[in-house]
């Protein structure tokens, strides 16, 4: 399979932001502490399909889906915002006039929004086709409203506040029930009890989760306590109920997630009881958000992890969906590489870092660590202006151009390098206005052109001019006239072809010679995670979030024979059950049949000339092969060569024929940056 000299990069100090809230609707919406919004597909693939970058001043506290697949968010700035999920930006904001907003809930019909404010008011907004309108304010009380839940009838709202639960009648706006939540049964210390989560069940039961670590069930009509379940010694921070209302999930500040189930006391009897069943400890810090889908428990924590834990009893056998998924890193490219100049560009929310790779003059054998003769060097830090976070960035292969974009504008910089160090940086002025918004950037292989992915399926082609200028050449438009933004770009090495993927999963191929649409790859009903064009054959390789791989011949406008063979044979089950999507595809210039793929946990060389493995042979058989003789090895070898040495892998690319760069971000480094977790007594320590 060939040996590579590997640059193992660990100086990308990327820190993912903690998960603040989750909302389940047409897709799973997730808001991070830095205000970024991410959308995960409705299928349990755990692939981050869309992302809206964060904003300095926006601290989203709650998300809610309303009718028509509209997503609303409320933040501590006191605004309610609607998100444009096609253009991936905020459509508009409306001031709630109640101070910081802590909670937001849409009524069961999705036509009204209730917000809970700092000043203790619950305000109702009507969802109109293109805006929201203030309707009325319910009785104002003391204490911020931290959680809200609508009854299924839409006539009552329960609000969780400090030390209190209140049930409002929506029509009259009056409080019909006030329930005091005690901190402890024997309340010796008078600390307040914060109700972090409430749920109004259809039978009139109110479930509350509070900072005293209790999950309590109340009768909303009588205001009486039905059941108490002490869950944690610290706070219970989040609560979500399944659609059938027979199961609920809570998240605690110790990082544990508990499931409660409504189980019949006896077989055949109608009496049933909430029972705490399964504990899950996937997080190390506060679990600020939980969601309950039909088949999985979803939790997001301060440790920036999104965990999708499938419920095995709802699954039908093993398979792609029945895998525990942990999403820690964004499924977008944060690193770009200037191959010729051996530079790496790292993207942070508000700045970019340019590093020059180290070098060695020693040579060694397989597995050896080579001494570094020249240390990697931090060349440049480029701070973005304005409150918006950077959404994408790219460095040209020659290393002479850097482009990045925020939600509002595109920036292009000309870089002059000498002996590998930056001599001058110069901003290219007067970029054409029509280039915005930008979702993805890509340079052509000869660094002469910049491709800008934009909304409505269009791609702008910009000619880069020396010594520091640019010219808008052409806009490539999708023939189907989609409204979705373009997410991924791939250009062929010879500069003839450009492939673009939009959010509706269509892949269009354009000819750059004629600037016109060449063909569309047959639709596959799954998000695309990575695309690349083979420089030798101009075959487009496509990786989907369900771990399927396709190879599409651009000249012939059809799937290649190998791709058909893969579909016929089927991929190995271990390959399909991997939990992170393929993030990047590269090609070995020495071996045109070899593909280099990577996800967060592995690096794989796929040799198309070798047979595909079947389910009985182990997928990861390198160690086994090493024991065999050269002759026997040939008989057992199969197409997948997997390397799990580098974890978690953020980026991998080929610098030249036998030189590889991998960017790792060890989880321990991230955890070291987090505040200390809640102290827990562990037995035997």
């Amino acid at each position, binding site marked *: 399979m060939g040996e590579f000299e590997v640059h193992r990069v660990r100086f990308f100090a990327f820190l993912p932001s903690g998960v603040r809230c989750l909302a389940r609707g047409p897709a799973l919406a997730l808001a991070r502490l830095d205000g970024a919004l991410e959308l995960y597909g409705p299928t349990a693939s755990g692939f981050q399909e869309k992302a809206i970058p964060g904003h300095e001043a926006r601290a989203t506290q709650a998300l809610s889906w309303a009718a028509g697949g509209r997503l609303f968010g409320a933040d501590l700035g006191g605004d309610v915002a609607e998100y444009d999920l096609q253009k991936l930006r905020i459509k508009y904001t409306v001031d709630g006039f109640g101070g910081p907003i802590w909670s937001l809930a849409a009524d069961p019909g999705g036509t009204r929004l209730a917000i809970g404010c700092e000043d203790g008011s619950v305000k109702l907004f009507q969802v109109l086709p293109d805006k929201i309108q203030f309707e009325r304010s319910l009785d104002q009380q003391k204490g911020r409203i931290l959680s809200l839940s609508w009854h299924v009838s839409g006539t009552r709202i329960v609000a969780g506040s400090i030390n209190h639960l209140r049930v409002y009648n929506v029509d009259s706006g009056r409080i019909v029930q006030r329930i005091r939540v005690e901190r402890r049964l024997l309340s010796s210390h008078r600390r307040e009890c914060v109700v972090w989560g409430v749920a109004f069940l259809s039978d009139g039961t109110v479930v509350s989760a509070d900072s005293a670590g209790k999950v309590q069930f109340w009768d909303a009509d009588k205001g009486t306590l039905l059941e108490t*379940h002490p869950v944690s010694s610290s706070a219970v921070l989040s609560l979500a109920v399944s659609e059938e209302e027979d199961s609920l999930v809570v998240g605690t500040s110790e990082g544990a997630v508990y499931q409660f189930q409504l189980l019949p006391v006896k077989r055949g009897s109608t009496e049933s009881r909430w029972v*705490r069943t399964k504990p899950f400890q996937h997080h190390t810090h506060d679990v600020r958000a939980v969601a309950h889908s039909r088949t999985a428990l979803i939790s997001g924590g301060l440790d920036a992890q999104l965990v999708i834990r499938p419920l095995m009893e709802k699954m039908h056998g093993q398979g792609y969906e029945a895998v525990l998924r942990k999403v820690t890193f964004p499924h977008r490219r944060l690193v770009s590489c200037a191959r010729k100049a051996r530079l790496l560009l790292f993207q942070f929310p508000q700045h970019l870092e340019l590093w020059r790779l180290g070098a060695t003059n020693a040579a060694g054998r397989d597995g050896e660590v080579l001494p570094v003769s020249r240390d990697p060097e931090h060349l440049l830090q480029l701070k973005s202006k304005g409150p918006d976070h950077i959404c994408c960035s790219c460095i040209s292969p020659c290393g002479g151009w850097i482009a990045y974009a925020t939600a509002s504008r595109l920036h292009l910089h000309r870089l002059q390098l000498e002996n590998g160090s930056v001599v001058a940086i110069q901003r290219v002025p007067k970029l054409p206005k029509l280039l915005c918004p930008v979702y993805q950037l890509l340079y052509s292989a000869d660094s002469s052109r910049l491709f800008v992915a934009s909304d409505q399926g269009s791609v702008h082609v910009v000619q880069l001019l020396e010594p520091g200028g640019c010219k808008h050449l052409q806009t490539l438009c999708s023939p189907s006239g989609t409204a979705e933004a373009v997410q991924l770009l791939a250009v062929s090495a010879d500069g003839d072809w450009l492939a673009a993927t939009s959010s509706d999963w269509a892949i269009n191929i354009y000819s750059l010679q004629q600037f016109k649409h060449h063909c569309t790859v047959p639709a596959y009903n799954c998000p695309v995670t990575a695309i690349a064009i083979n420089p030798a054959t101009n075959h487009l390789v496509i990786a989907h979030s369900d771990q399927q791989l396709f190879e599409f011949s651009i000249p012939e406008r059809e799937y290649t024979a190998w791709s058909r063979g893969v579909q016929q044979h089927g991929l190995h089950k271990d390959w399909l059950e991997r939990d992170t999507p393929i993030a990047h595809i590269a090609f070995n210039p020495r071996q045109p049949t070899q593909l280099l793929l990577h996800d967060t946990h592995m690096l794989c060389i796929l040799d198309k000339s070798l047979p595909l493995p079947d389910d009985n042979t182990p997928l990861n058989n390198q160690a086994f092969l090493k024991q065999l003789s050269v002759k026997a090895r040939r008989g057992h070898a199969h197409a997948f060569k997997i390397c799990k040495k580098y974890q978690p892998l953020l980026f991998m690319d080929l610098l030249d024929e036998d030189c590889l760069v991998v960017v790792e971000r060890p989880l321990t480094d991230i955890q070291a940056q987090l505040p200390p977790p809640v102290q827990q007594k562990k037995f035997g320590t």
Partner: protein
Amino acid sequence: MVAQEQLRVVRCGGSKLNGSRAAFSADAKYLLCATGDFVKVYSTTTEECIHILQGHTNLVTGIQLNPQNHLQTFVVGYKIFAFYCLAGSDDSGFVIIPKNNEEASDSFQLALVRLTKAPGQEVETKELSLILDDIDYSPKCTAFGREGEYVASVRGLHLRVYFFKKKKTHSFPLSARTVKGANNYFTCVACHPKEDCIASGHKDGKIRLWRNFTHKKEYTFSAMHWHHSAVMDLAFTVEGTNLLSGGFESVLVQWRDVSESKKEFLPRLGSTIEHISVSPDGTLCCTSHTENKITIIQSNLRVSAVIQGLVKGSSVKTGLVVDPRTKALVLNGKPGHLQFFCLQSDKQLYSLDIVQQEYINQAGLSQTDLVKAAFSAQGNWLATVEQRQEKESDLELQMKLWVYDEQMQSFKLSTRVNMPHEDHVTALCFRDTDGVEDGIPTLVTAAKDGRFKVWVTVDESDTDKQSVGWICDFVGSYHNYQADNCCFSEDGSLLAVSFEEIVTVWDSETWDLKCTFCHPPGKTWSLCFGRLSCSKYLLGTTDHGFLCCWNLLNCALEWSTQLGVIVLQPDPLSENIAAVSCISEGSDLFVFRPNEPRPLCIQKNVCRGKVQCAVFIPRNVPETVGSEKYQWLSRSQLYFLTETQELMTFSTKSPEMRLTPSSKQLASEESLPMTPFYVLLGKHREQQQLKMDADLGKPVVHSHSTQSSPAVKELLHTPAHVLPSATFLCSIFINSLLISKENKSNGEVANEVEMESEKAEDESDEDIDHTAMEEDPKLTEFWGEMTPKLSKSQEKELRKIRKTDFSWISAL
């Protein structure tokens, strides 16, 4: 007519109380407990054994109260490993039996049996229908659910639930090991009595609560974790509100509302909890422990009674010792304790804490161990040696001398000697000071450091306190050889100490070396002087298996024989010496007198394996032994401990004879135990009959005295809150104690009592078991012919006196 007497080896009590779950009677007044081949019935309030149910010829494996008829109990013995019966079906039960009825087979099955309603004690059944196959034999691993709708059984990593209505089995597997290193193997299971909930215990200390298991797929469980090692047993309370669990930690955990957050503990129960059972009325529960103990616990988690059997540790380092005062058997008990076990009543008298340190329940920890104990001839002094050795070079030794305190009725620490020797103490013995003039208590210790030390008491009294201490009086050695044994002659004038191959004899007055014996060569294992007429002989055994007898008068070897003797034990009351040899597999017993060439008795193959130690215990009343051959058994009884820590003895009585006294015990009214109050009433009446001149030292008990008085009965049985005032009752009570005019002969009275009590037995509502022994008239006849000197009634009286526990008197 008289059957040929045969010497038999019999179990003599001290058998395991913790072999299986104990069962409460329906009213929780009695506790039925399987011990060896018997079932013992204890009173839960007084801890007394009320009667013993016999009938099995092999190990009793389970007791189950009949839920249909609370006066009936099922008792199952070996080859049926467990028995269950359900409230709903009175004609069927469930048994766990080996597959194909083969003993060697490893797999067991749960089968349904039809119970025929036969009047007899034994139920025979042919109909068997298989319910579950390949289950664990332990009764703890199978449990029946709510209203008998399902049965849950665990084995290895699988929980299986069989539903009787649907006739379907659901299997719920667990993975062998998780990432966190949990050990998911099942250890026990219990079913909630009212809800569909199964609790299972696991090797790693987790308790899982399974719910919704009627669905094969959507079952769910929650885990509760407190125990750090395996959960040994689980039990739900009667209403299912609480779950009780126990294990190695010797803490009973009560999970209130079966939830993890509400748990209560009853700690310091002594040793690992092996079984938990709950009384049907919910007032009591009991835990069986590895140290052969049953603790009865009230529902508010307070210990109400402790039934303590003979504690069997891993090794009996002190050997078997007799307490001369109580004639109790003394040996290692709980770690660091010395237990005093009364063989007649088969119960522990008390446990003396020697080490006086907290025992830490942790594997691999080196604990202080009690290794030697010896009593002085009168039982005034007790010497103990404890040691702790963590490393080879690091030995901690401590000798303690305890004096008997008449007021406390217990031993009190008198002197503590740190490091009495520099190496392991091998033997210690007191000098018998009866015949000696000055009578200073003297103790000799021998040790591996090559020395023997003589310790004597000194008066350390000062003005306000009288106290006696011990000091070392003499240190002897012989060529620096290890001292292995020491032993005083009967009159205390000579001390024999063996130093490896050489036996030395010392004058105990001057501590001069008198003579040495070293023939035949071989390291001496044990040493003893002959007694009474044979006191001129010194006997010793060597590691070559030789038993040598030296004559002290001419200092010559009288005789020697190669028998492979491992235990040599003289009888303190006669010249007899018992030697146990082990040449091949079994052990053989020889009883001989040193001056006679032929042994008195040879009993081959008394047990499998080596006998650990043996002791003669003087009988309270000499037994009449017909055969000359077994005359040596008349005054003392020989007890020995086998390799498996089983306490055995020799008996010439036929099995039926041995059983009779226990069935006679049923004669006492409502099987009430002999409380001091009860005895006091009886004595009072007796005293009146004897014109108030009976001496207090000889307690006389008439168990029938209370029966005859309805007034006393009334007084004792009416609840206190409905009783009339004491002044009103007083005259009736006094009157009842007066002598009645009737004047029957003693014999007639006794006969009448016997008849009455038999009637009472039949009519009694409290009789909880039909398997109780009926008195066999033939046996009494037989008994009567055996002892023609005594009249039937006299003999009966005697037996009653013998059975009474007078230990309470000493406490007065």
